[in-house]
């Protein structure tokens, strides 16, 4: 297992380097993202653009720039380690900005994850235990709505209802925990709900499908035949097997969300890294892309390891 983990970590490194290379190349290929022209202002004369390129080291060959970028990332830069560089547009170092925003995104992602697990899995279980009942039909209707209704639609609708009309919840914006737990919670509630809705619906469907399949297995029939209570049959035998794929999904979904829930952050004006990726520039987008890739690859690894513990048949060498 240790050897497996080390091997996978090395692959994470390779993946990140590849992602950096591809992203860096895109910036070179697409002229609209040339930071030198953007920074040179409204009248980017050739002399001005040349000066900008020289100032920011953009006049060096692609290979040199990429090498310097990778070097900074792993060895640190003027601002410390890891070397995340600076923002062209604000001329400030990126590390504190990204770390602050990552914390906001983490709050959003983890809170939404807890919510969608609390909603999606119980709904899926109850639906599976009472298939084709009214509850099952309503639950699957909810699931259909949840996966169909996009965040950019649901978010403004709920804001309109609960903030603008009913004044039950505060509006958009981020309220740090240290400034007040209740205000923080109230500000995060709608974003959590909106982000969790789609996932809850999906998890409900997945849980239901997995549990229905599991409950049809021979060993479940055996467990019942042995006289175990239905509760024990479902929770101890049925659920454990059916939720294993859910764990896999959870890891991947969380990993992806930690790369930035762009739409939710934009709709609710949460200063997370997804929102930052949309409005920022070259180095910032590069850094956030790498961070997103990092979380996804690490999430993959963690999920695979957890899977081995959940399913004794799985062994890694």
């Amino acid at each position: 297992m240790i050897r497996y983990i080390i091997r996978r970590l090395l692959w994470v490194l390779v993946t990140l380097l590849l992602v950096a290379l591809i992203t860096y190349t895109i910036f070179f290929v697409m002229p609209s993202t040339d930071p030198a022209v953007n920074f040179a202002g409204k009248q980017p004369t050739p002399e001005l653009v040349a000066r900008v390129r020289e100032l920011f080291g953009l006049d060096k060959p692609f290979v040199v720039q990429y090498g310097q970028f990778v070097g900074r990332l792993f060895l640190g830069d003027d601002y410390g380690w890891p070397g995340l560089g600076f923002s062209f547009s604000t001329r400030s170092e990126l590390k504190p900005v990204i770390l602050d925003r990552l914390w906001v995104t983490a709050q959003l992602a983890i809170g939404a994850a807890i919510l969608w697990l609390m909603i999606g899995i119980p709904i899926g279980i109850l639906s599976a235990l009472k298939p084709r009942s009214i509850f099952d039909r309503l639950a699957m209707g909810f699931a259909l709505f949840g996966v169909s209704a996009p965040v950019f639609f649901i978010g403004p609708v709920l804001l309109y209802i609960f903030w603008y009309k009913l004044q039950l919840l505060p509006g958009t914006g981020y309220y740090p925990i240290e400034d007040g737990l209740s205000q923080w919670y109230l500000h995060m509630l709608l974003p959590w709900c909106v982000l969790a809705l789609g996932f809850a619906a999906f998890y409900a469907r997945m849980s239901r499908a997995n549990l229905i399949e599991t409950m049809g297995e021979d060993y479940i029939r055996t467990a019942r035949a042995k006289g175990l209570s239905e509760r024990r049959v479902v929770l101890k035998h049925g659920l454990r097997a059916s939720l294993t794929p859910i764990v896999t999904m959870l890891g991947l979904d969380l990993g992806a969300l930690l790369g930035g829930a762009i739409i939710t952050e934009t709709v609710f004006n949460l200063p997370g890294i997804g929102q930052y990726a949309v409005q920022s520039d070259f180095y910032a987008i590069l850094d956030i892309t790498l961070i997103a890739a990092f979380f996804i690859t690490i999430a993959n690894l963690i999920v695979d390891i957890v899977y081995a513990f959940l399913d004794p048949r799985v062994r890694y060498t």
Partner: protein
Amino acid sequence: MSKRYSIVAFVAVLALVAAACGGDEETPSATGETPAATGQTGEVPTGGVLREETVDFGFTNAFDPTGEYLGTAWSYYGNLLMRGLVSYPWLPGDQGGNEPVADLATDTGQLSADGLTLTFTLKDGVMWQPPLDRPVTSQDVAWAFQRINTESLIAQYGNYYCGTIVGMDCSGKSQEDPIEGIETPDDSTIVFQLERPTGDFLFRLAQPAAAPVPPEVAGCFSEAGEYGRYVMSSGPYMLLGSDEMDVSSCNTLEPISGYDPDRFMYYTRNPNYDQATDDNRQNYVDGFAQVINTNVEDSFNRVLNGDIDMVHGAPPAAILQQYLTNPDLEDNFKAEQGDRTWYITMNLIVPPFDDIHVRKAVNLVVDKASLLQSTGGPTSGDVATTIEPPAVLPDTASYDPYATPNLAGDLDAAKAEMAQSAYDSDGDGVCDDPVCQDVLLVNRNYEPWTNYTPILQENLSAIGIELKIRELEIDTAYTTIQTMNNLVPIAINAGWGKDYASPYGFDFFLFNTAGLACEGLVNYAMVGLTEDLASECGDNVLDAYNAAVEANGPIPNVDEDMEACVTTPPGDAYNACWATLDQRLMEEIVPWVPYRWGSQNVAIGDSVVQWVYDQSAAWTAYSRVAVDNDLTIEDVAS
């Protein structure tokens, strides 16, 4: 049991729908007073905080005044933070809002008879904010120019000074290096020596880059944009927390806490400001809060809800409709001249637009009234009939060389023009040459620009030009037409706003050869293109150039006309010179079809009891705004 649950669920849904759809119309908050009309005087309350939201600040040089090119930033600098030798009165255009007035200086300068020496005397009593706590001096003004001249500081509009002030060439190595053409014989006197008479030099001095900066702080930053988080004020307000900066050395400086480039910008009063030294600013409010909100519709809802006072930027279509149709909101919506021309640009070296008759025919056939209507009608501006917006060059405000009935285009006149073109072999007024097929038009990919596409297709098809439309994301559209090698024949994605209300600041890069480049070109029509530059930008550019010259003669050049106008002394003769150039461009060169002079639309909340338009920056005159909330900036910033 299940039936009861069904009924309960149904009732719950009904209740939710009723709550969402019912209730009163949105009621304005606060006192419900109608905001005062532009420039109205009387009992204007002081105090409170103007709370504004924006999608992002969008600064082009991280708020460093030496290079910052964003109009919003200029509005902050001029109204709140920086007192230049001259500035503006922060009023609408019809009240002199576009004319420089004395600010830090006692007057608008003493010009020598030969127009080459300009001397200013600084007012007494203009102080830097704490912790600097000292008078603003002529050396501070000179330092600003030394920064402009320093190569590493990337002065984005340094061209207005370099080559104009003796000794300035924008290639200086250090901001400590004095400039030969700027003398400061004492703390209150500054003398500029010019390379040539420059009729609009006062306008250039009114730009924020020319406002004084304190060397003890700005001198610590030698790269572009770095000073932006440490900007010190000589104006009525200062950035919140800036007075706590330790300015004892460069190493002790910390970014101002009241400015986070990604989140907010808070201003509070500068305790060292003396209102008696300032005739141009009224400074009613105690503070300003500029906060980022990425959800623009939410921001406008906040204005309607009374949570904030205004939003930076024009309202989206759905919100705009509310303001235009709800009588309760009539006074909350402002549409002012934006000093910006939106235009169709035609490439002088790409067929069929290399033929002047085709360019004139396009000017005659385009239905400008429909373009305006599809933009939003009169609130979005006026139909443009020439290059310069009226406030920039009043002399051409009623000049319309391609007048058509109801501004809707004149097909007969267009055909008559097209019939004279080499591309209409049978003289029927319709292009019959293959070059008129699949003509690439670059446009933006969102409204209202996408609304223009069918209008232009229909208009140009009537004279035989069939368009191949490419609707692109805004940055991509600009980059596409800025790359000479792309040889884009015609484009409608571009607009141009003034830097200052003098035609040089509007026309220069648009039509001067200085605006030509292989990449990043601004002179999209290629006016003045030479064979040397064409050959630098690629074989296809050179081939197109040679073909155009062979077919139509030399590419027209207006550099000398501009030079003659720039050196004309300020006044009627100066404007008349530019009006003549404008006419030459529109009638003898015809690079554009100007179609709209854009308005600046502003939606304000009821708590704004006085709102004034600042023509110079085409935005809110922050130094004349008043609100009736009782907030403090500390309340808002916490």
